[in-house]
């Protein structure tokens, strides 16, 4: 259960980002599918090069937020719909992530290893080599890697849960505080009435830039933490992230109904944890009715579509 909560809260950070883009600023942004990987890739690359985890995580989130900024810039400068702009950025980020990692995936080493030599280099030539004329593996030699210092121990003893929960609480509190300020209130207002922002003498495009930058910062943060938690970064780990986060947000909205605590910031947090619980239940018992773990993305997409469709039939508000 602790591991489920840990993963749920890690997802909650990304879901908060998606909540900001889809619900608060009302911009359908698919960049998280790419910015999640960028966050993971940057943290893996920085940790491997010997940087501390705090600065690595911060820089990773910053790199992901730059992706959101670029999406908003393309959308506002060139008048391209956010959906299309984010698809282009998301596609581009796939290549960027591979460039950062220099490979499609990158492990985050937990233990230091010495220089790796081939068997022959260690024990010397064997009688067989005289007959065969030496083996190819004789050339094998690899530099050793230094262990990355990460805050997680993966023992499911509450230590990791505490750290992740602290991240969620601190980020959630800061966001809540920000949304209370005049700037934050105007950001919330922008999501429903761009014209009124313009009438107040403020360029509405600024809020698109700010909203998507903050949203992708959170997604990148989630990607970076998950990468450290799981011990690797992979270029495919962000696929379907927007849909999963959206499902979390919708689950939260269903649970809380019309009660909007903390400007709705609790929706993605509670929703993500519930989503993770449902996911683990489906993985544990789903095989009885023929489900495979790989079916979860399909189920999640179907869930999002069915909730939106149900709301449309009820003629209630939905902005997806």
């Amino acid at each position, binding site marked *: 259960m602790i591991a489920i909560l840990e993963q749920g809260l890690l997802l909650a950070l990304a879901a908060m980002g998606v909540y900001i883009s889809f619900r608060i600023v009302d911009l359908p942004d698919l960049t998280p599918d790419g910015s999640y990987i960028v966050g993971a890739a940057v943290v893996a690359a920085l940790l491997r090069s010997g940087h501390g985890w705090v600065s690595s995580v911060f820089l990773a989130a910053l790199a992901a937020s730059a992706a959101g900024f670029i999406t908003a810039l393309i959308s506002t400068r060139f008048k391209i719909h956010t959906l299309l702009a984010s698809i282009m950025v998301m596609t581009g980020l796939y290549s960027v992530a591979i460039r950062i990692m220099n490979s499609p995936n990158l492990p985050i080493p937990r233990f230091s290893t010495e220089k790796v030599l081939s068997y022959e280099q260690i024990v010397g030539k064997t009688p067989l080599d005289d007959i065969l004329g030496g083996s190819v593996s004789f050339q094998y030699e690899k530099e050793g890697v230094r262990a990355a210092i990460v805050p997680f121990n993966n023992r499911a003893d509450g230590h990791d849960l505490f750290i992740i929960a602290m991240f969620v609480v601190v980020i959630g509190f800061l966001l809540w505080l920000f949304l209370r*300020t*005049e700037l934050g*209130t105007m950001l919330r207002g922008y999501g429903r009435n761009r014209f009124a922002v313009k*009438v107040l003498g403020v360029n509405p495009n600024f809020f698109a830039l700010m909203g998507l930058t903050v949203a992708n910062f959170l997604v990148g943060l989630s990607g970076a933490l998950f990468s450290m938690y799981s011990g690797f970064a992979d270029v495919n780990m962000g696929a379907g992230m927007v849909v999963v986060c959206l499902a979390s947000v919708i689950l939260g909205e269903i649970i809380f109904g019309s009660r909007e605590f903390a400007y709705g910031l609790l929706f993605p947090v509670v929703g993500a944890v519930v989503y993770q619980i449902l996911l683990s239940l489906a993985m544990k018992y789903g095989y009885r009715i023929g489900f495979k773990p790989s079916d979860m993305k399909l189920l999640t997409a179907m869930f999002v579509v069915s909730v939106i469709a149900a709301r449309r039939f009820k003629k209630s508000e939905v902005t997806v």
Partner: protein
Amino acid sequence: MIELQKVTVIYNKGTLDEKIALRDVDLFVEEGQFVVIVGANGAGKSTLMKVIVGEVKPTFGVCRIMGQVLKEEKIFKCGSIVCQDPNLGIFPNLSIEENLMLARKKGFRGLTFGRVDTRALELLRSCELGLEENLKKKASKLSGGQKQALAMVMAVSSNPKLLLLDEHTASLDPKSTEKIMELTDRINKTLGTTILMITHDMNIAEQYGDTVIVMEDGRIVARIDKSKQKVQASQLKSMIKSRLTATT
């Protein structure tokens, strides 16, 4: 305050869909004036408003606000607009209090915690629509008349020099219209805000404002100065009607 010189607006110029929306319009609105523009649909009233707010550039002629040719964002720094749709002037997802807090001043905001202006609260109270008692209520939950009253109070909270009203009572019931028009008049008289109002309601044109401008087919066909001409309300109505029929 507002100066339009020989303003002509041609939409889709040089194409088959070419349409002349304004023809050689000269308009001068002094500071503190309450000018009402009336005309039938297609008379060019809305295009005139778009030219004033900088949304449409004149094909010919010039439009100056406070002696300067201003861009859209600059105009909104010194002026406000209330449109026909009550939802356009407010932030529906925010509470009345938050709406008023944002409307307190023009321009960019920082990471500060704002408060509601007492003058805005007084104006809200003067509407007698019960808004001041429900400051925590979300604006989306208000009626059309309440929303428009809130939009009006928000529009003048930042103390703008110019208030533009684009058929702001068109979607309201008669009772709400009366309340909103009383508020409009009060804003002009007590705050001294220059008001340029567009309407196609003759009764409003005859009751409110210092000057009535009649538009037809993209032209200003009459300018009736109520104070100088000392016309009676009924006379004014017939004057407007006669001007409109004379041109058609």
